[in-house]
């Protein structure tokens, strides 16, 4: 089976050749299979967002190549093969909640009735059935983030790219959203690449955790997470704690080696 995402020898220089040159990524090679849930974790500024934006073809890699679903990253962007969610929900105030979810469908030329039906389905998926006609600003932060996820999933992309989507939420909402995301991931055929700086979050969600080293971002190590299907009890599971410790030690050693 071919990888969903193939990152081969990717480096990224910002402001190349200028005095403020920054090497954000150095020779990243990474293969992500279909239906994996992969987390990227690492000290802040190590290039997690940059790597995600390279995969999304929102910025070009300086060196190396990226394929998504067998095509170039740029082609995959044009074909809308992935959905995206950021730390800020990024909903548009001038659209109702339902119309926010419909936006990508509108841009893809879906018919009005189909869009409305899909928006209703997506609202049910994120358990916001009642809120289609509300304005985003009337919703809590957690609800807004659920709408953003519904929007990212509305056109059933096979790949979901998420950059610290729960970073701004309080702990309770965050755990609830994690469970919800796992439920959605299991019930749809989606591959997820998830950037986070929370160790328990990475372990709880992922099938694989990629630990990155500080600038220039490199893959330091990767840790397989074999916890099976997760629920709230997983967070009390000794196997969960063991993996959390393992990721923490990996992170500590990359930070130490950076001095």
């Amino acid at each position, binding site marked *: 089976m071919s990888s969903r995402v193939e990152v081969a020898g990717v480096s990224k220089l910002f402001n190349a050749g200028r005095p403020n040159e920054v090497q954000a990524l150095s020779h990243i090679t990474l293969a992500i299979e279909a239906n994996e849930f992969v987390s990227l974790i690492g000290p802040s500024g190590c290039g997690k967002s940059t790597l995600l934006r390279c995969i999304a073809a929102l910025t070009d890699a300086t060196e190396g190549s990226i394929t998504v679903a067998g095509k170039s990253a740029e082609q995959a*962007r044009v074909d809308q093969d992935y959905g995206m969610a950021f730390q800020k929900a990024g909903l548009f105030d001038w659209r109702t909640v339902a119309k926010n979810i419909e936006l990508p469908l509108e841009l893809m030329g879906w018919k009005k009735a189909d869009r409305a039906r899909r928006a209703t389905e997506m609202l049910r998926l994120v358990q916001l059935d009642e809120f289609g006609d509300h304005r985003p600003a009337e919703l809590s932060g957690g609800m807004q983030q659920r709408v953003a996820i519904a929007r990212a999933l509305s056109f059933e992309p096979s790949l979901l790219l998420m950059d610290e989507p729960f970073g701004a939420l309080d702990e309770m909402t965050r755990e609830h959203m994690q469970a919800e995301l796992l439920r959605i991931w299991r019930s749809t055929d989606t591959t997820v690449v998830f950037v986070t700086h929370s160790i328990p979050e990475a372990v709880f969600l992922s099938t694989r955790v990629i630990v990155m080293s500080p600038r220039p971002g490199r893959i330091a190590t990767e840790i397989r997470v074999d916890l099976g299907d997760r629920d709230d009890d997983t967070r009390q599971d000794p196997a969960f704690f063991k993996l959390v410790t393992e990721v923490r030690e990996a992170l500590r050693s990359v930070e130490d080696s950076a001095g």
Partner: protein
Amino acid sequence: MSFLHRTQNWSAPAIAGLLIAGVWEAALRITNPDFFILPAPSAIVASFFATFADVWEATRNTGYIVISGLIAGVIFGVIAALLVTRFRAANDTITPLAAAINAIPIIALAPIFNAWYGITSARSNQAVVMVLVFFPIFVNTARGLTEVESDQIELMRSYAASEWTITKEVRIPNALPFFFTALKLVSSVAVIAAIVAEYFGGRVDALGPLIIQNASSTRFDDAWAAVVAGSMLGLSLFGLASALEYLAMPWQRDLRGDS
């Protein structure tokens, strides 16, 4: 309904205005001063109706200058903002340009425009209004078009949206509050600009000349009646701009919770 509801905000200034007029009237009646430079409100109101035909004609002529100059300035300002934000390179020049422009006393251009268009032509007055309106509209709209969350732009790019789609779906709605702030500002300033420009030249049957003629022949109650007409013109335009703002941004209205 809700627009009328909002106009209740205007009742406080209206009451304050009436109170001031009452105190002013009472003071003049009680002290009965031997001068008429500051006529009593009752005298101004009486003069307003006595000279209504002249005042009305002058207001219509000045109103035409204000509204035509306003419309031209708004159209050019918005087009310039769209062009400048479309071509990124020009973008960095907005802020310094705006600062430089703000330092120009545009009203001081009135005699120069008179020389260009002829002393009795209303064109010079329209030109003053247009130039005065242009810059705040241009600068504010350009800011609204560019001050968009970068995540929102990236999200649109992840949908393979074209630059024009991004402008239509994100930049323009984002710019509306900025635009209307400027529109409300210029709608009253435009009346002041037109009247002051009329002091220097232009058609004689407008508010500026009417105020000058009456003041120089010591008919101060008539001069004040013309000033009152000018204020009413400014207030009407401000009210119109507020109504347009209300209609153009239903999402802001919903948030006030009075829908």
